[in-house]
Structure formats: structure tokens, C-alpha cells
């Protein structure tokens, strides 16, 4: 449905996107992950035709997105990170205004707007001016605007980052609902648990490069490393130095009372963990093995990227 190949974007001499490539299949949700400033919004703005790009190719629904041809864009809906409206209009007036731009006849537009307002749970506020809306309500109205005229592809830039838990829950349900209706969705976020909740595929964007693109499961299989969480009776302060030259330990992190040991060779670790611990000669309260979370993987990948 969407193919991006070697996309490059420069602002002056600064390269924001350094040749990124990824592909999104029809009817799936693709999550673009990355820290703030990684280039997520730039990617979104390019794919929605708002800004130009320097090099690369973009295909939307088989049609190439050329700098001057906006035809492929008729199929998309875009919800920017902080949607802005003409706030002197009411919610339904704004939707009607956008319908007019698209040339939808009045009666048909009225019907569709009613349906959309129902879907995003904004019916009660539909006739209030947008300037009285809360952040969450604006986000919902923005979603309704993006969904207007039934686009095939929907771009959502940080759709939940500024929302309270309840609105967040609503938005996620709507995203999953859209997927059920066969929509293709690209969403960007810096909140990993959000991505894990809804995305089929993810791409990790860091410093203008895609450092991973694929299924969440693949990411976990490929990068998942077991972690031992150890709680000592007294937290040893020089534990990092002491375990530094153990080959099967990738990293050590200390959080509160717990020492987390990241393993790179599970077989060796299983055999040797107890003997290494006994060498320390400190009473151990508990020892637990767990899989690392998406967040751990993300942090590790981004860290690796720093050394390249």
C-alpha cells in the first residue's frame, strides 16, 4: 500500500532523513517509533504531501507521489500532532467546511458528519465552538477530520501523546476499529507501550535512519535477550566493576534495590550465574529471569546506533 524507498530530506545542510526505506501492507498498522526529533513528523509531512523531499521514491497505492502531483493524496487522511482548527467554528461547522473543500454534496456530508461525530464521541460538543474544546476533544475532532470522505490510508502523528488515559483508550479503540474496516494506518509515537498495543509492524527511526523495520514479534525474537533481576540484601556499590569482564554479560543496570543483568549468551549464563553471584559474597534475596521489554530493545538499538 505504501512503499518508501531511500527517502532523503535535508534542511539546509542538516540531513533529517538519511535515506529511509520501509513498506506498509494494506490493512495493517505500522508504528513509526523514535525519540523526539528523530524525524517522525518530517516523514509524516512528506508522506502526506505537505513538504517536499530531496531524494528517494514514494509509492502510495501503486502511484508515485511526485513533488507536483497530489493525486495519490486524495486517498489519505492525516491527523497532525497538535491539530489546529478555525476555532471560531463549531465542530460540525468545521467538518462541513472540510467536506465542502472535498466537494461532497451537502446532504451526503451532513450524514457522514453525523456518523463521524458519533464514532469519535463528540456528538454533544458538535455545536459548541472549537475554542471551548479540551485537548482531547480537539484530538477527537482531528480524527474525525482525518476520517472524512473515507480515506484508504490514515496517518496519525503522535495521536495519544498529550491525552488523558480515558481519551487515549478511546483513540486506541478507534484505531483498532479502523483497522477492522480495512484501513491502512501509519502512526508515529515515542511511547513504546502504545506501539505494542496496536501496531502489527514497527519501524524504529533514529537519527534519520530506520534501524529496524518489521513485526514486533520479529524484533523481539531477534533482539530479545533474557535479563536476570537480582535483589541483594545490601546493594553492592562496585558490582559493575566486579562483573565487568564476565563475557556473557552485556550490560548491568541498577534501579532501586534491583540489579538487572543483561545477558548475551543464555547458555553460558544459565551455567555460570550462580557461581558468579557467590563470588560476590553478598546475601541474595531473589533471582529472577525475564524477557526484556520493547523498551529495553529500543534503548539498546538506539544506543548501538550511536556508535555507528
Amino acid at each position, binding site marked *: 500500500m505504501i512503499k518508501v524507498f531511500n527517502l532523503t530530506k535535508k534542511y539546509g545542510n542538516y540531513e533529517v532523513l538519511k535515506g529511509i526505506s520501509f513498506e506498509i501492507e494494506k490493512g495493517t498498522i505500522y508504528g513509526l517509533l523514535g525519540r523526539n526529533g528523530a524525524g517522525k513528523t518530517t516523514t509524516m*509531512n512528506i508522506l502526506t504531501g505537505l513538504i517536499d523531499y530531496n531524494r528517494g521514491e514514494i509509492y502510495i497505492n501503486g502511484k508515485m507521489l511526485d513533488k507536483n502531483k497530489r493525486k495519490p493524496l486524495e486517498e489519505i487522511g492525516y491527523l*497532525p500532532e497538535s*491539530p*489546529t*482548527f478555525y476555532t471560531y*467554528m463549531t465542530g460540525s*461547522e468545521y467538518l462541513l467546511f472540510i467536506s465542502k473543500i472535498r466537494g461532497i454534496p451537502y446532504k451526503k456530508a451532513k450524514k457522514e458528519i453525523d456518523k463521524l461525530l458519533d464514532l469519535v464521541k463528540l456528538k454533544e460538543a458538535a455545536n459548541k465552538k472549537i475554542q471551548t474544546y479540551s485537548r482531547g476533544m480537539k484530538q477527537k475532532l482531528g480524527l474525525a477530520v482525518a476520517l472524512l470522505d473515507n480515506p484508504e490510508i490514515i496517518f496519525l502523528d503522535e495521536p495519544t501523546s498529550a491525552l488523558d488515559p480515558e481519551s487515549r483508550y478511546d483513540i486506541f479503540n478507534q484505531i483498532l476499529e479502523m483497522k477492522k474496516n480495512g484501513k491502512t494506518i501509519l502512526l508515529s509515537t515515542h511511547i513504546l507501550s502504545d506501539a505494542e498495543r496496536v501496531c502489527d509492524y514497527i519501524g524504529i527511526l533514529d537519527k534519520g535512519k530506520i534501524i529496524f523495520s518489521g513485526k514486533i514479534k520479529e524484533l523481539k525474537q531477534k533482539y530479545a535477550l533474557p535479563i536476570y533481576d537480582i535483589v541483594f540484601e545490601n546493594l553492592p556499590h562496585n558490582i559493575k566493576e566486579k562483573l565487568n569482564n564476565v563475557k556473557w554479560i552485556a550490560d548491568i543496570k541498577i534501579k532501586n534495590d534491583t540489579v538487572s543483568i543483561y545477558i548475551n549468551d543464555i547458555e553460558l549464563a544459565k551455567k555460570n550465574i550462580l557461581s558468579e553471584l557467590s563470588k560476590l559474597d553478598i546475601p541474595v534475596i531473589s533471582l529472577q529471569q525475564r524477557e526484556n521489554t520493547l523498551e529495553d530493545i529500543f534503548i539498546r538499538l538506539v544506543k548501538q546506533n550511536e556508535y555507528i
Partner: protein
Amino acid sequence: MNTFKAYLKKEMLESWRQYKYLLLFIGIILFAILDPILLKLLPEILKSKINGDLASLIQIDIKSAVQNYIKDLNQVTLLIVLLTLMGSLSDEISSQKLIFPYSKGANLSSIVIAKILHYAVTISIFIIFGFIINYYYAVTLFSENIIAFKNVLISAALISIYYFFVIILLMFLSSIFKKGVLAALLVLMLHIISALLVNIDKIAKFIPYNLISLANSFTTENILTTIFSVLLYCIILSLLTIKNYKNNTFA
């Protein structure tokens, strides 16, 4: 065409809800009434302050009453118009209000044209209306030196064209600087500078400000050169505005 219609309606709603119609109406119509009355009362006021002989030196007739309105139209009224319109274009760029319309297929050229035409037509209607009222007051209050109504209407048209130019210039500068206040200040500066330049005979007829001088003199001689050159500037500036708009809006 869809975008043009949608934006024309949007501009009307915006002007109504943000009281822009009200402000423009007052800024243009008020002085049409206020000026002749003040001019009528001026000798009376002076008479009570100074001695009577001096007051009789001030001779006000119909022509000078209308000219006084023209003077206000290119001073106070211009300020009010700039204050009212300065945010109109820059706000949309700086606060990214165009993302939704644009991502839903809106045509940027149509947006700019709808904006310009809406304000140009609104202001022209108010100006013509203002001149009619002013003429009525002038004829009612004064008696000497009558000018034909037709000539007053021509002056109204000339001033309207000048405002058309001012609106486009404001939009053009807003599209470059993205700051409404800055654009408005620059328009004001150019207005003042061209008021001086218009005194140079050789170039006068190519300077937009000449429209005001022509309106003020109530002549119909040699007005076409100025009208056509201003309309040409308007077209060029509109095209440049559209071009800037396309390049700067989302970058």
C-alpha cells in the same frame, strides 16, 4: 472551485464572528459622518474660543468636506484596516491551520484568491457606501463649490482600487515574513514613502498612491495609466503571494 467556495464562506464566517465586518464598517463609514459634522462645528467652536473674525476665515465647502474624508481614508482608516486584517494570513501559516484543509485536497491558490477577493469586495462596498453617506452630509451641511456625484463615485472607485492593492501587498508581505504586525508596519511605511514619491512628476502615474491624489482632485484625466499599472502590480503580487504560500506554508 470547491476550495474557493469553501474559503469564501469561511472568510465570511470568520469576519462575522471575529467582528472584522464591524471594525471595517466603523473604520470606513464613521469618518464619512464624523468629518462633515466636525467641519461644520469647527467655526462655532473656534468662535467661542477666539474672536469671531478669525472663524470666518475658515471657509469650508462641499469639495473640501469630501476631500477631508479622503484624507481620513488614507490615514486613520488605513490604520484600522491594517489592524483588522494583519493577522488574517499570517495566523494561518504560523499556527498551521492549513494542514487539515491542505491534506484534504485544498488548493492553495484558491485559498489566497478567496481571501483577497473577499476583503477587496467587502472594503470596496464599505468605501462606496461611505462616499455616498459623506456626499449626503456634505451637500446637506454646506452649500458652496458643489461637485458632481459621478465624480465622487469615481473617487470611491479609485480609493477602492488603492485598498485592493494594499490588501494584496499586506498578504504578500505576510507570506514572506509570516508575522502580521511586521507586514502591516511595512505596508504603512511604503504608504508613507509613496506619498512622498508621488510628488515626482515623472514617476507619479506609476505609483499606486497616485490613485489617492487623483481621487482627491476629482479629475478623470489620465487616470487609466495609474489604474492599469496598479492592477498589474496586483496581479504580480498575487502570483508571488501564491508562490510564497506554496513554498513557505509547511516548511
